[in-house]
C-alpha cells in the first residue's frame, strides 16, 4: 500500500472541500481499502467521512425517505420504515456481501463501489478502466461476471451493487454536495455513466462531490421482488438480478418498475419495458416480449453468453411471481 495523508472531516462542506483538492473519500473502506492494498487505487490523501452527520433516515415531505450516505447497509436493511414501505431495498441489501461487510459498508460507498472484474484487480493485466489505453484483458479472457448490455469496446465490466439495482427500480435520487458547498440532486440513473471510450470515468460526479443522501420517493403500490441469481447461495455477486415492483388491477398490470443487476456497467433500467407492460394482462408471451425489449442489444463475450437466456428466464420468473395469485 502506498503512503497517504489522512484527514478526518468534521462536516460535509469540509469533506467536499478537501476532496475537491484531489483527496478521496473513505467511508466503510470495504472496497477502497482492498483496492489500495492492491494499488489499483492509489489516493495520496484520504478524507475519512465516517464522522459526518449523515447516518440518519428521515421522512421527506413527499412521503419518502431521506437516507444519510453513512447509514450502514445493515442498518438500512433493518430499518422498520424501509421494510414497511420499500421492502425491495432490504431484500437487495441482504442479498449482498456478508453480515460483517454490511456492518461496515455504507449507502454512499455501496453506490460507488468499483467493478469486480478480475483483471481490474490485477495491476499486471491490461485494463482500460484502471489504466486508460492499456487494453481490456476481460475481452478474450474470463468474463463470467461481465456485461451483456451497455458495454463498450473499451470495457465490459459490470457494476456489482445489489442495493443500487433496488434503488434504481424505486426511482431514488442522490443528493450531492460540491466542493464549494453547493448542492444538487440527481436521479440515480444519472449518477452513473456508461463506459464508452472512457471506462475510467464511472459517474457524473464533479471532482470532490460528496454523496450526502439517497432520497426515496413515496412508496409505490405493488409486489416487490428482488431475485438474485449467483454462483453460490450467499456471498457471491449477481450473475443476473432483477428488482421489480409490480401491481395488477382488474387483471392487467397497473404498475411496473424494473431494474437489472449483473448484466450492465450500471444498475440497468429501461422504462420502455415498463411502459410496454402497463395495461396488459400477465402471460408467458408478454414476458417473452418484455425480455425481447430488454435483450435486443445484448451481446455475450464468451464466458458470459449464458446471461442472455438467464436474464430472460429470470425476468419471466420474477414477473410470474409478481403477478401470481389473487391478492392484488
Amino acid at each position: 500500500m502506498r503512503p497517504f495523508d489522512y484527514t478526518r472531516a468534521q462536516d460535509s462542506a469540509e469533506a467536499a472541500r478537501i476532496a475537491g483538492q484531489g483527496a478521496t473519500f473513505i467511508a466503510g473502506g470495504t472496497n477502497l481499502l482492498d483496492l489500495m492494498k492492491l494499488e489499483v487505487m492509489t489516493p495520496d490523501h484520504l478524507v475519512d467521512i465516517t464522522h459526518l452527520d449523515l447516518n440518519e433516515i428521515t421522512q421527506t415531505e413527499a412521503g419518502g425517505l431521506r437516507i444519510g450516505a453513512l447509514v450502514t447497509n445493515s442498518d438500512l436493511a433493518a430499518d422498520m420504515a424501509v421494510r414497511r414501505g420499500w421492502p425491495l431495498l432490504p431484500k437487495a441489501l441482504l442479498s449482498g456481501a456478508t453480515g460483517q461487510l454490511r456492518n461496515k459498508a455504507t449507502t454512499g460507498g455501496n453506490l460507488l463501489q468499483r467493478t469486480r472484474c478480475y483483471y481490474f484487480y490485477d495491476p499486471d493485466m491490461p485494463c482500460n478502466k484502471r489504466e486508460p489505453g492499456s487494453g481490456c484483458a476481460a475481452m478474450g479472457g474470463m468474463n463470467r461476471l461481465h456485461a451483456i448490455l451497455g458495454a463498450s469496446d473499451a470495457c465490459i465490466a459490470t457494476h456489482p451493487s445489489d442495493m443500487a439495482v433496488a434503488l434504481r427500480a424505486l426511482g431514488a435520487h442522490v443528493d450531492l454536495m460540491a466542493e464549494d458547498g453547493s448542492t444538487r440532486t440527481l436521479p440515480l440513473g444519472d449518477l452513473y455513466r456508461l463506459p464508452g471510450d472512457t471506462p475510467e470515468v464511472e459517474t457524473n460526479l464533479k471532482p470532490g462531490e460528496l454523496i450526502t443522501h439517497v432520497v426515496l420517493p413515496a412508496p409505490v403500490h405493488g409486489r416487490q421482488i428482488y431475485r438474485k441469481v449467483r454462483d453460490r447461495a450467499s456471498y457471491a455477486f449477481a450473475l443476473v438480478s432483477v428488482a421489480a415492483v409490480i401491481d395488477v388491477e382488474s387483471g392487467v398490470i397497473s404498475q411496473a418498475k424494473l431494474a437489472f443487476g449483473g448484466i450492465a456497467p450500471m444498475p440497468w433500467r429501461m422504462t420502455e419495458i415498463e411502459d410496454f407492460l402497463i395495461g396488459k394482462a400477465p402471460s408467458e408471451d408478454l414476458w417473452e416480449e418484455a425480455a425481447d425489449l430488454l435483450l435486443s442489444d445484448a451481446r455475450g463475450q464468451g464466458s458470459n453468453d449464458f446471461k442472455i437466456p438467464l436474464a430472460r428466464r429470470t425476468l419471466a420468473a420474477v414477473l410470474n411471481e409478481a403477478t401470481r395469485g389473487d391478492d392484488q
Partner: protein
Amino acid sequence: MTAHLKMDKPDTRNRLDHTAQGLIGAGMDRPDGKAKVTGTAAYAFEDQPEGMAHGVLVRANVAKGRLNDIDRDSVLRLPGVLAAMCGPRFLRNPAQGGANEAPVQGSEGIAYLGQPVALVVAETFEQARHAAHMLTLQIDAQEGQTDPDIAGYESPDAKQAQQGDLDRAMKDAATAIDVTYTTPSHNSAAMEPHAAIAEWDQDMLTLRGSYQMLKYNRNELADALGIDPKCVRILAPYVGGGFGSKLGIAPEAVAAALAAHELNRPVGVALTRQQVFEGTMRRSESRQRVRLAADASGKLQGIGHDAYISNLTDEVFSEPVTQATPFIYAGENRVIGHHIARVNRTCAGSVRAPGESIGVTVLENAMDELAHQTGIDPVELRLMNIPDKNPTSGLPFSSHTLAEALTTGRDRFGWDQRNPQPGSTRKGDWLIGMGMASAVRVNILSEARVRVTLMPDGTARVQTDMTDIGTGTYAILTQICAEMLGLPETDVSVSLGDTDHPPGPGSGGSWGASSVGTAAFLACEKIRRELAKKVDADEADLTLKDGMVSYANRQVRLADMIDEEIEIEGHVEPGDTSDDVTQSTYGAHFAEVAVNAVTGETRVQRMLGVFAAGRILNHKTARSQCLGGMTFGLGMALTEELMHDPRDGHIVNRDLAEYHLPVNLDVPQLDVVLLDERDAYANPLQSKGIGELGICGAAAAITNAIFNATGVRVRDYPATLDKVLAGL
C-alpha cells in the same frame, strides 16, 4: 529406550478394547481448541521475534521467460526498504509432499505467471508490499504453452496398466458406457495463508512456518540453502489448514531464510491471498474417459479409466486420478491410462485427497450412467460389483465395509423414496432428485517416531515433530497416551511441530493419526511393560486407570511406583501388511438436491455420508473431518474452479470472493455415520485414515442427484447453473 514395530503381520489383540480409561473413541474436545477459538494459539506469522523485517514476494508477470535481473534501485530509495533480491536459490514452486529435497530452484527461469521470482524486504509489511509492487523486473518473455490439450500428453509406461481385453469386453457388453468428464483446477484454500519467519543464530536457522511434514521440510530447506539439515530447526505448532498445500517447503521459507541471512535480522514472509492462489499447489485439471462394460445382469466385465492431467516440467507428481480404479469394482478386463501434459501453469500438487477426490467422483458418475442405462438401482449396481479380492493384484482385502456402508446409507437416507425416472419430482420451481456414490480411499501407514515420557509425578509428556493441521492430532495423541497409561486426559501434555522432537509421519495422505498414534501406542506399551517389571507382574494383567495401577488384587498410585522419568521412543515402520493385502477405507455418499427449473441453480438439501475407517479414535474430530470432506465435495460439485486465463494460463480468480468455496448457506444438514470397524492389518490401533475419505466421491452423489432431478448430465465440473441450464 525405543519400542519398535515393523508392521509385518496383523495385530488382532484388539488392545484398545481392553484398556480401562475409556477415552478411545470418545468425542473428546481438542486440548488446543480453546487457544484456537480465543485467538491465543500463535500461528506461524503470529510469533514474531523482536526486530523482524517483512518480506513480500514478487511475481513473474509472464507465463514463460527469463529473469535477467531486478532493478534494485527502483525500490531501495523507497521508505523503509532494506533489500531486494532474487537468485539461484529461490524456489520455482513449493516442494511436493515427501520430496525430501529442494524443488527446482532459480529465479532466472520463469515457468508460470505468478511464480515468485524476487523478494523485497522492508521495515513494515505495507512498505514491503508497496515496494514489491514498484520493483521493475527485467524479463525476456518467451512463448509459453499454457493449454494442456495443445501441449500434448506424455504417457509414461510405468503409469499405464492393462489386463485382459477391454475393447473386446466393450464390444461384447450388454451395456457399454464410454464417457468423458472434465474437472477444473482447484486450490486447497486453507484459511491461514502460507507464511514463514526465519531467524539465524550464527549458523543455526530457526524457521517458524506453516508446513505439514516437518522432517522432510527440514531437509528440503537445508538442501535449498545448501546447509546441513542439523543446522535447521522448524517450528510449526499450529497450522491453519493444509489440505496438501503445505506439504513441502515453499518459496516464502527459502526467501525468508536468505533475506534474514543477508540482513542479519529475522525476516518474515507471508503470502497475500492472491499469492496463495497463484503460488501454492493447485490440483491439476483433468479430463477423464471412463469405459464400463456390463453383462446383462449388470456385472462389470471391464473398466477403463484414462486420465489426462498437467504439471510443470520437472515435477514428478502427477495427480493419481485412477488410484482406486484397480480395485473398487470387479471386472476381468481393465485399462488404466495416465497422461501428463507439461504446461506453463501454476505447479500442480497434492490438494485434498489427490487422486480419489476427482477420480472416484468421475468413476461414480459413470457408474450412475450405467445404472441409468441398465435400469438397475445405483446402490444395487455397486453391491453386485464389489469384488471379493483385489481384481487387479489378486491380493485379499483387509477389512472391507463398502457393502455395509452402502446398505446402511440406503436405509438411513430413505433411498426408497427416490424416483428412478429423472425429472419426475417437482416442488414449485424446484426439481428434486437424489443421488449416491461410493467412497474409497487407499489406506497408508507411514514411518513415525514419538517420544513418550512418564514423569515421576505420574503425568505424561508426548513429543514429536508431527503437525496438527486442524485435524485433531493433539486430541488423539492425548487420548491414546492417556488411555494406555491410565491417566485423565488433563495429565497428558502433547508437544508438536518441532523438528527437535522425534520425526513423526507428517500430516498428509490421511496417515497421520494412525501412524503417529501407533508410535505413541508402542511407546506407552513399553512403558506399561516397564511398570509391570517393577511389580513383577505381566503387562497384560495391569489395569491402569485414573492414575492408579491395579494388578493381582493390589492397587497403587502410579506416581508412587516411579521415582524417575520413563522415556520411550515409539517407532513404527510399514511392513508386509502394506504389501500382502489391499488396505482401503470405504464409505457411501447420499445427496438430495433441488435444482431451480428457471435458473439452473442447485441447492443441496441434505447429505449423508457413511464411512468406515477402522477404529474411530475420536468421534468428534473424525466426524469433523467427514463434514469437511463432504463440504469440499459440495464445492467440487457446484462451485469450485480455478479459472485459467486462456492466453497465459494465469489464475484469474485469486481471492475468496471469486474462488467459490461453499459458504454456510450452501451447506445443508450433513449427516455422518461412522461404522464400527477394526482393521488388524492397518496397525495395532486397528484404525485407518479418515481425513480424506469424506471428499472421495462426494461430488458425484450431488451431480448424480442433479441428473435424477433434471435429466441433465453435467460432465464438466463444477455444475454451475449455466451448464445445468443448457440442458433444461
